[in-house]
């Protein structure tokens, strides 16, 4: 069974219908991008850091199986339990079993795109377990009943009025109150209460160190730490690509992560978990869910280097103007448009086309993933696999026929210059010409480029010929 294909242009059009809001979204993310630039420029070695990070990731991927085994040994030695999940379903089953073994009914969870990818929350809720997302942005979208629209800034699509309304309905804030300070204070009380009553804490993992068996979790709110330092059970879910070889490699990645994400020099909390806390239990779930397959692809392997900073989203002119939901994928934006089709090309075929190939994502990526090249490669792949919609397929085919035949191109050009300017408007600007929806054709020249070229260059040459 296939899910319906995601129609990015259509979803983006819905987003841009509210023009002031779309402009606000664009400007807000550009502001974050700007903060990232300032942070990057504060370090003369920024480019060296990016190159070093990319090289560490490439090395890790080339030895991933060995490093995973090394990590498992080290983590086990520290008293952690390591579980392996081939896919999202198995991950969810493992988490549920652990929770049931500990009779945990109330769970607090810090930000984890992996658990979003596995749809852990609805699964646990079906089994009667309360899951509270504790990152404020994630809690907001959880109350709104939607997924996050951005991997670092989950509620970036919402205005404070929206948050005020949600909090009024769910947390009893004063009707019409929109002061972020007041709203965050109420959320603090609400979430601290949830922390106090939680039976278990689930976290994502930013980095795992093969050499030491340690996990590094980065937050600004301290929600991951509160979530796992109170209850006895800590479950950490991580994709197998989160591994790095040595502790000292963290120096490179922690310098890049927050600066790229929000322009901060480092997140407020960068916690290093080595084994469970005294009297507690630490379970680490290593999840594949398509990653090992992606590792085998020469074209798309480097997308596994991603450290989920979100910089490519903040800079992307398409993401900023179409919103995270237009991608209908856990990870949206440029990196999401590479990862999602790898999972399901039929469903996500429109995403690699939601890109102007401007290359800005590639310029800001802290681990130097060649994002726009991979997006272009995906387009060819999608065409080859036959996922292109008819309009694009026929258009491309006609284009190929015409462009491969100079005589035909010349002939059609001559006809177009003569006929199109005389056509009634409705024949040019209609449903068959989506290009013309918000654009006007330029005035048609009387002469083609080829005619002009011949007129200007052939003449003098004929003159010189005559002189010789």
């Amino acid at each position, binding site marked *: 069974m296939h899910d319906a294909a995601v129609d990015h242009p259509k979803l983006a059009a819905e987003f841009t219908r509210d023009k002031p809001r779309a402009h606000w979204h664009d400007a807000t993310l550009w502001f974050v991008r700007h903060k990232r630039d300032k942070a990057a420029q504060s*370090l003369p070695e920024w480019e060296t850091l990016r190159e070093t990070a990319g090289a560490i990731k490439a090395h890790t991927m080339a030895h991933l199986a060995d490093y995973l085994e090394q990590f498992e040994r080290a983590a086990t030695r520290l008293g952690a339990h390591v579980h392996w999940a081939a896919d999202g379903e*198995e991950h969810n089953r493992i988490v549920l079993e652990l929770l049931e073994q500990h009779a945990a009914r109330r769970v607090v969870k810090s930000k984890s795109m992996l658990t979003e990818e596995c749809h852990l929350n609805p699964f646990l809720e079906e089994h009667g377990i309360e899951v509270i997302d504790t990152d404020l942005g994630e809690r907001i979208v959880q109350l709104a009943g939607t997924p996050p629209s951005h991997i670092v800034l989950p509620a970036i699509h919402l205005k404070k009025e929206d948050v005020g309304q949600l909090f009024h309905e769910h947390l009893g804030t004063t009707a019409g109150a929109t002061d972020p300070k007041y709203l965050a*204070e109420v959320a603090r009380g609400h979430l601290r209460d949830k922390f106090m009553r939680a039976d278990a804490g689930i976290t994502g993992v930013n980095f795992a160190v093969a050499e030491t068996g340690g996990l590094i979790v980065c937050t600004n709110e301290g929600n991951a730490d509160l979530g796992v*330092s109170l209850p006895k059970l800590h479950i950490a879910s991580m994709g197998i690509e989160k591994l790095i070889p040595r502790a000292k490699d963290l120096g490179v990645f922690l310098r890049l992560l927050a600066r790229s994400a929000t322009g901060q020099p480092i997140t407020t909390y960068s916690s290093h978990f080595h084994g469970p806390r005294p009297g507690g239990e630490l379970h680490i779930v290593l999840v594949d869910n398509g990653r090992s397959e992606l590792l085998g692809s020469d074209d798309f392997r480097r997308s596994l280097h991603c450290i989920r900073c979100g910089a490519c989203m903040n800079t992307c002119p398409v993401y900023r103007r179409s919103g995270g939901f237009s991608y209908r994928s856990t990870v949206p934006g440029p990196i999401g448009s590479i990862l999602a089709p790898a999972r399901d090309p039929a469903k996500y075929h429109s995403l690699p086309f939601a890109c102007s190939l401007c290359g800005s994502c590639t310029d800001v990526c802290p681990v130097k993933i060649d994002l726009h090249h991979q997006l272009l490669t995906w387009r060819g792949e999608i065409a080859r696999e036959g996922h292109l919609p008819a309009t694009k397929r026929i258009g491309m085919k006609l284009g190929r026929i015409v462009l491969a035949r100079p005589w035909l191109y010349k002939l059609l050009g001559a006809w177009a210059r003569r006929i199109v300017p005389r056509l009634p408007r409705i024949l040019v600007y209609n449903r068959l010409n989506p290009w013309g929806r918000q654009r006007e054709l330029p005035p048609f020249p009387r002469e083609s480029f080829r005619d002009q070229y011949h007129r200007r260059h052939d003449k003098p040459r004929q003159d010189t010929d005559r002189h010789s």
Partner: protein
Amino acid sequence: MTSRDKILTAIRKARLPAADLPPLERDWITYPDPLEQFGEVLRQIGGAMVRVADRAELAHRLEELPVYRDARQALSLVEGAGRTTIDWHGIDDPHALETVDFAILPGQFGVAENGAVWVTDRGVRQRAIYFIVQHLALAISSASILHNMHQAYERLELGGAEFGAFIAGPSKTADIEQSLVVGAHGPRSMTVFCVDSAEPTPRFGV
């Protein structure tokens, strides 16, 4: 075949081109005055640095700190600095720390480039205290400030069963319309006392 074997086999099948680990010994950034840089960055990220000559001045300056003065429940694990009003050693359940207003705890060292302080749970039995307390103060030696994160990891010896964290400023969020709010779920303030006197780090009070 277990999932573990399945995953490892699939990875090994991929046969990737060899890639060497890059060198990490580079010309990383250093600052003319790391202590000043540390204080400036910490201020920018919402924290505060207080430089003191010795333990006596630390105790004195602590008394001047409103969040300490106003604290009903306080904890000090730094010898000779501040009062402890809770039965720290008797607390077996970290949930009991929810009501602590102020804690001053030892940090290991600071990092100039990002205003972070390294803390561990060595001698701090309930690590929850770093995150649950309303106002956090850390005491480090002024001479302990390192220039950058590479130096930090050179100094750290990770791998033992120990919890450690870089803490840089108070708990904060910008999740509501990108407006910065200090005091998300954790500490509402973070004060770092940098002590000039000879001892490398203030001793534990435990």
